[in-house]
């Protein structure tokens, strides 16, 4: 067999295998190192701090767990959240993340390594990303071979779509969930391939861990049954499928009910019914197969058909009937919003208001996946090429995840692993084809090929990708073979190989640059601490959030209730340690709407609401001075919408727009807007900053009125350095029983207008 370049001929197969496995181990550890290191931008550029919003709650819960033990955590009732309702934390949380950190914490302390719990929480996500890389390697190895696995591991290690949720400090459920997702899928594929109940049990155990860790476990709950169903419909039922699915389903379902937050949902909600249905179907099919093995007959086909159709119809009828009777809960709103992207906006504004629930913009696919998104379809097509049972899984996964990623930004996270796997399969096929030294036998060696073709002709396999190359490498060259008949397929010469390989390696290099850039510049901001650049390019840290929260912690009594929009609830609880009305848990829409109503109505209306809820301080985020666009005025319309959902008579969204339909904050702003508590608190004394000059809101690029709003029921308590956080104290009732407005006017020396009669004495016309 001619070769394009000389191959070493004096290597024993054992040496090749050993070297290959050593190289694999080295590569995997380097990939793990790279995965961890690239997530440390957040710590290096800022500090070891918990990011964003939800992680603050997880961190607070973990501290309770580490300090007081698991039982205390399990029974923890938090009276400071959702004041005055409180929150049963143990029963309303996915405890997997906190339990993981707790175990690591206790383990390290048992070794006399006194690591701070905060550092464990910060470093958990990078640590698990290394495990994710390994799990993806194992998964892809089942799809193709080890080299594809290594590529997939490298891809998932640094791809921005996954880094965005797992940088150091991003202490959220997704940090461990993606590892569990990939490992559960790996166990499932392995169980299916071997027909082993051991791997089925392992898949169930990791499924249990996943259920305990992330609400996204429903994705697994539906992916595996869908795979099973498709295999049955393709006529690929085997006893292996029966063993794998049955052992996974029974143990997995029973174990998932151990998590209090999930409870009886696996047997009572529609999201879980597909798994049950496929389980039942498998039992029937398996039984029918058993009968078939004993009765060899022709009538069996009809028999099978009749039994399957009846069972299917019965099952479906029972499902519909039970849903109507209420035994099975219908799909939840969050689920509907996956099919109808406008659903949430119409019916559940609280879900639609979250930015990560918005449909994905096209550029973010490129931002998050870069060249993988182009390779992804090629990889899926290569899966069709072989179409073993596990390839069916990847195809289904690719289709489902692509759809979901298009619907919701945050579900890009579930798409990322399959993109990495499919792209790695495609890329490694490309490399296999072009690195492989073998040339077609009837080749007329090109003139510039400096290779002595006959030297090592005795069936020497190339060092890498030995078994896979002949079968998988044929994908691309199939086309060539179809176009040019009667010729063996293959690559001739070195120049073609060289051109392709250089291009491929170039793509990889650009991918690395892109990932590093995206991670460093877009995904590593803690959002608690903001960064800007000075004129000389040095970094300037804007630390207003912590300034305000520490002010609250130091200057207010411990029982002081702080009202803010729900986004900041967890941060206030975590950093300021003060009771909050609403937080990011968003379980009580009415309570949130109450806060929305207080924010969007006038002072006179809002004041009784504030007093009824014992509110001492009101906190607003204002970015107008600095140009920080994520502030409360920009979120204000969602407050209005959510309040309108509960009080449609009192709050109406159109009132907050100008007659021309614009959302303005300058002197043309609508009266409802100008009188709203939110507007007043945001722009109170803002124009004074500019000393009579034009005062510009730098987020909305509008000039606010020179005479700013006045406040009668609130006092400004604290405003941070860059005015990002403004805290107001709610005044207590006037001692003389006057309403605060007139008391205020009296204090300022204004006379009450005598001429105006008191309204209740006015004769009724």
């Amino acid at each position, binding site marked *: 067999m001619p070769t394009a370049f000389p191959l070493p001929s004096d290597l024993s197969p054992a040496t090749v295998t050993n070297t290959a496995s050593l190289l694999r181990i080295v590569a995997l550890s380097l990939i793990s190192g790279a995965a961890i290191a690239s997530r440390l931008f957040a710590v290096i550029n800022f500090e070891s701090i918990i990011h964003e919003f939800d992680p603050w709650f997880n961190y607070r819960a973990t501290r309770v767990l580490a300090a007081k033990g698991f039982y205390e955590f399990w029974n923890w009732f938090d009276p400071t959240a959702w004041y005055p309702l409180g929150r049963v934390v143990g029963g309303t949380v996915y405890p997997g993340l906190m339990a993981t950190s707790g175990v690591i914490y206790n383990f390290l302390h048992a070794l006399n390594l006194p690591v701070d719990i905060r550092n464990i929480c910060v470093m958990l996500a990078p640590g698990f990303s290394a495990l994710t890389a390994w799990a993806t390697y194992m998964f892809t190895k089942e799809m193709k071979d080890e080299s594809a696995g290594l590529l997939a591991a490298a891809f998932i290690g640094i791809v921005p779509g996954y880094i965005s949720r797992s940088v150091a400090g991003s202490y959220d459920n997704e940090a461990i969930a993606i590892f569990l997702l990939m490992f559960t899928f790996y166990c499932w594929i392995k169980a299916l391939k071997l027909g082993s*109940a*051991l791997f089925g049990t392992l898949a169930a155990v990791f499924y249990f861990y996943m259920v305990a860790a992330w609400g996204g476990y429903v994705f697994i709950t539906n992916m595996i049954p869908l795979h099973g169903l498709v295999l049955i419909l393709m006529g690929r039922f085997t006893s292996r499928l029966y063993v794998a699915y049955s*052992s996974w389903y*029974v143990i997995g379902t*029973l174990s998932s009910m*151990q998590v209090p937050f999930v409870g009886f949902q696996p047997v009572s909600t529609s999201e879980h019914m597909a798994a049950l249905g496929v389980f039942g179907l498998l039992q029937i099919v398996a*039984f029918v197969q058993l009968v078939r093995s004993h009765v060899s007959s022709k009538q069996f086909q009809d028999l099978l058909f009749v039994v399957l159709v009846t069972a299917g119809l019965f099952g479906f009828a029972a499902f519909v009937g039970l849903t109507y009777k209420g035994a099975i809960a219908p799909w939840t709103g969050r689920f509907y919003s996956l099919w109808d992207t406008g659903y949430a906006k119409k019916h559940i504004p609280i879900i639609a208001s979250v930015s990560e629930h918005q449909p994905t913009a096209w550029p973010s696919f490129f931002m998050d996946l870069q060249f993988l998104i182009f390779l992804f379809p090629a990889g899926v097509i290569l899966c069709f090429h072989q179409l073993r049972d596990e390839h069916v899984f990847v195809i289904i996964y690719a289709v489902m995840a692509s759809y979901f990623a298009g619907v919701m930004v945050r579900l890009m996270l579930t798409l990322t692993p399959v993109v990495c796997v499919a792209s790695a399969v495609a890329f490694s096929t490309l490399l296999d084809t072009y690195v492989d030294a073998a040339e077609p036998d009837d080749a007329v060696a090109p003139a510039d090929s400096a290779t002595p073709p006959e030297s090592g002709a005795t069936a020497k396999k190339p060092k890498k990708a030995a078994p896979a190359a002949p079968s998988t490498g044929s994908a691309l060259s199939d086309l060539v073979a179809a176009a040019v008949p009667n010729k063996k397929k293959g690559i001739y010469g070195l120049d073609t190989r060289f051109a392709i390989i250089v291009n491929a390696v170039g793509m990889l290099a650009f991918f690395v640059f892109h990932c590093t850039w995206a991670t460093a510049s877009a995904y590593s901001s803690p959002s608690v601490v903001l960064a800007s650049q000075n004129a000389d390019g040095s970094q300037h840290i804007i630390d207003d959030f912590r300034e305000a929260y520490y002010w609250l912690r130091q200057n207010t009594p411990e029982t002081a209730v702080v009202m803010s929009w729900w986004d900041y609830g967890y941060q206030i609880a975590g950093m300021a340690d003060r009771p909050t009305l609403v937080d990011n848990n968003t379980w009580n829409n009415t309570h949130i709407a109450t806060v929305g109503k207080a924010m969007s109505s006038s002072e006179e209306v809002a004041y009784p609401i504030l007093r009824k809820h014992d509110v001492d301080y009101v906190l607003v985020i204002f970015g107008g001075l600095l140009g920080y666009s994520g502030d409360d005025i920009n979120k204000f319309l969602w407050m209005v919408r959510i309040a309108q959902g509960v009080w449609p008579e009192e709050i109406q969204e159109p009132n907050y727009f100008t007659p021309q339909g614009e959302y303005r904050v300058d002197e043309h702003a609508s009266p409802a807007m100008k009188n709203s508590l939110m507007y007043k608190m945001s722009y109170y004394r803002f124009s004074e900053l500019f000393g009579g000059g034009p005062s510009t809101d730098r987020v909305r690029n509008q000039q606010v009125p020179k005479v700013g709003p006045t406040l009668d029921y609130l006092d400004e308590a604290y405003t941070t350095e860059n005015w990002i956080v403004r805290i107001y104290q709610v005044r207590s009732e006037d001692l003389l029983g006057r309403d605060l407005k007139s008391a205020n006017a009296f204090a300022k020396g204004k006379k009450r207008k005598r001429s105006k009669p008191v309204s209740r004495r006015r004769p009724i016309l």
Partner: protein
Amino acid sequence: MPPKPAPAAAAPSSAVQTLWKAYNEQTSDRLKFIDAFLVFLMFSGIVQFAYCVLITTFPYNAFLSGFGSTVGQFVLTASLRSQVNPENKNEFKEVSPERAFADFALGSIVLHFFVFNFLG
């Protein structure tokens, strides 16, 4: 599931009889032993389900764990049966009967750990 695939056949009773006869002749004693256990589990499950439907579901978690225990044990045993069945030898190339039994034991232990935890 009781053996009732007869209705579509031409002669229902004879089909069931042939099935029964073929089963008796072709199945080894080991597999029959497993099948006896499967039938027992099936009846146990039916009794529990009837109790749940007819009388009460009250300790729902207790019912679920009891029913889950029988169903789980049933499918694990059925898996064991198909793994040790000599007819399926070429499907389970890497699962020897010994390993199948070890898998079965491990699966049962994990299953009953969760059953016990859920019993309440």
